[in-house]
């Protein structure tokens, strides 16, 4: 990890389109970036990362990352490990929410109150992990 560089943590969301947890991973990531830890985090566009984006892959190699996946297939984590290195932390929505399972029945397009509450809970967890990563970086 470079020492002289600005301290930033990359948040990589799966944004899975097929189930509501993918939308929750996306919204949670945006909440961290926009509200909870705007100065400490950046996001990496997963489709660009997967398509071979050099800047994205270099960043994920040189800076700590936190992956946020909707389900236990953990596509964001797998891709990060494959192309850049092991993430500093990886969070799965269905794990954070306990008895949730990946479902196509939920409101994938516009989160309802229950799903939005889940996104906030996941975002808090991500923010906590960001703090932990930065503390280890000091």
């Amino acid at each position, binding site marked *: 990890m470079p020492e002289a560089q600005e301290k930033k943590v990359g948040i990589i*969301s*799966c*944004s*899975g*389109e*097929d*189930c509501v947890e*993918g939308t929750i991973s*996306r*919204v949670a*990531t*945006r*909440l961290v970036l*926009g509200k909870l830890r705007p100065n400490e985090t950046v*996001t990496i*566009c*997963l*489709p*660009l990362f*997967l*398509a*071979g*984006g050099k800047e994205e892959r270099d960043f994920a190699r040189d800076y700590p990352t936190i992956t946020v996946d909707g389900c236990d*297939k953990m*596509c*964001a984590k*797998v*891709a990060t490990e494959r192309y850049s290195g092991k993430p500093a932390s990886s969070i799965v929505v269905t794990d954070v929410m306990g008895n949730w399972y990946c479902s196509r029945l939920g409101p*994938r*397009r*516009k989160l309802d109150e229950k799903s939005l509450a889940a996104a906030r809970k996941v975002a808090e967890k991500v923010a906590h992990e960001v703090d932990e990563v930065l503390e280890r970086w000091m």
Partner: protein
Amino acid sequence: MKMDASGQKKVIVIPCSGIGKAFGSISRDATYEVTENLRKDTTQTLCLALLVSGDEDSLQLVRHNKCITVDGCPLQCAEKNVKLAGGDLAGSLRVVDAYKENRHLKPKSVTFLDPDGQKMALALAEKIAKKVDGLLRNQ
């Protein structure tokens, strides 16, 4: 080609879902408008990241069905990734083109689309739906 219970063919609509700018969110919202509303019986979407991670079911789905990609920016990551997966790419739409046709709209919000973003998504969804109809007519 995948068929539903009535035997009707399906088209797979795949957005980039880019997370950095509003255009990625618009690609995603337009896809849901098509798959959940405008053409819900003849289309479906899938997880792009799961496809690229090599999931066999997803690979079979894009290789044996007509696919339409919906990309937020000119880098066209959804299109690139579907091609890399060997998918049957039958159409490729871009939010930037919808923007050029609707310059009065100024979408800004990424997390939750603002009214301009929603309007642009609906305009794009109509184009996707027309593309779907054309593909199904030619089957």
